[in-house]
C-alpha cells in the first residue's frame, strides 16, 4: 500500500497549497489536483465506479469554481483580530482531534472490514437482482429508498441554484 500513502501525501501537499496560496485561481487548480488524487486512490482501493464518477464530478466542479473566481481576484486582508481568530480555530481543531483520536482507536484495522451485511449481498446479489456489478445492485435495489432520498436532495439543490441565480428578482417600489 505504498502507492496509497504516496497519493495521500501528494493530496495533503496539494491541499496545503490550495489553502495557503494567495491567488484564487491557483487555489482552485490545486483543489482540482486533490480531487484527481482522490479519483486515483479510489482506483487503487478497487472502486472503479467511484473513480469514474469522481473524475467527471471533479471536472464539473473545477468549471463551476473557475466561473466563480475568474476576473474576481481579490487579495486576502490580514488585519483585525488575527491572533484571536487563529487561536480560536486552533483550539477548536485540538478538541476535534482529541475526539478523533478516541474514534480512531475503536475502528477495525485497515484491510479487515466488518462485512456482516455485505456478505449477504455478495452471496445473494446475483440471484436476487440479476446485476453483475454489486455496487449497482446495492444502489438501485437493496438500498433503493436511500437513492430515492438522495436524488431528492440533488434536485432540491438544483432548484436552489435556479432560484438563487434567476435574473428576475423582487420588484422594488
Amino acid at each position: 500500500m505504498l502507492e496509497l500513502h504516496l497519493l495521500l501525501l501528494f493530496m495533503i501537499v496539494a491541499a496545503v497549497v490550495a489553502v495557503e496560496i494567495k491567488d484564487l485561481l491557483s487555489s482552485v487548480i490545486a483543489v482540482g489536483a486533490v480531487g484527481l488524487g482522490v479519483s486515483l486512490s479510489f482506483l487503487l482501493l478497487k472502486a472503479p465506479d467511484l473513480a469514474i464518477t469522481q473524475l467527471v464530478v471533479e471536472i464539473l466542479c473545477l468549471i463551476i469554481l473557475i466561473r466563480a473566481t475568474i476576473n474576481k481576484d481579490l487579495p486576502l486582508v490580514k488585519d483585525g483580530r488575527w491572533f484571536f481568530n487563529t487561536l480560536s480555530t486552533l483550539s477548536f481543531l485540538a478538541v476535534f482531534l482529541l475526539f478523533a483520536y478516541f474514534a480512531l482507536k475503536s475502528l477495525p484495522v485497515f484491510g479487515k472490514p466488518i462485512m456482516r451485511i455485505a456478505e449477504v449481498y455478495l452471496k445473494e446479489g446475483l440471484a436476487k437482482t440479476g446485476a453483475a456489478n454489486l455496487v449497482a445492485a446495492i444502489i438501485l435495489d437493496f438500498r433503493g429508498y436511500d437513492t430515492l432520498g438522495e436524488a431528492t436532495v440533488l434536485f432540491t439543490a438544483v432548484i436552489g441554484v435556479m432560484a438563487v441565480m434567476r435574473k428576475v428578482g423582487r420588484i422594488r417600489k
Partner: protein
Amino acid sequence: MSVYFLCLVLFSIGLYCTLRKRNIIKIVIGLGIIEYAVNLFFVLVGYKMAGRSPILSPNQAIENMVDPIPQALVLTAIVIGLAVTALIVAIALRIYEKYGTFDITKIKRLHG
C-alpha cells in the same frame, strides 16, 4: 492505521481552511477538501487487503471482495457534493453582486 491518520490530516486541513479563512471562495474550497476526505475515509474503511472489486464475472469464484456498501453510499454522496458546491457558489456569486466583495467580514447589511 497510518492511512486513516493521513486521511484525518487531510480533513483537518479542510476544517482549518473553513474556519480560519475570510474569503468565501476559500471557504468553499475548504468544504470541498472536507468532502473529499470523508468520501475517501468511507472507502478506506470498506477496503479489504488484497481484495477484488465487487463486480462478478463468469467462470470465476467469488472470493475476497471489498465491501460494496460504502462504495454504493459514496457514489451518491459524490454527486450530491457537486450539487451542494454549485449551490454554495451560486450564493457566493449573488453576494458578490450585491456587496462587491468576497470578504465575509465586510458583509454586514443583512436586511433586504
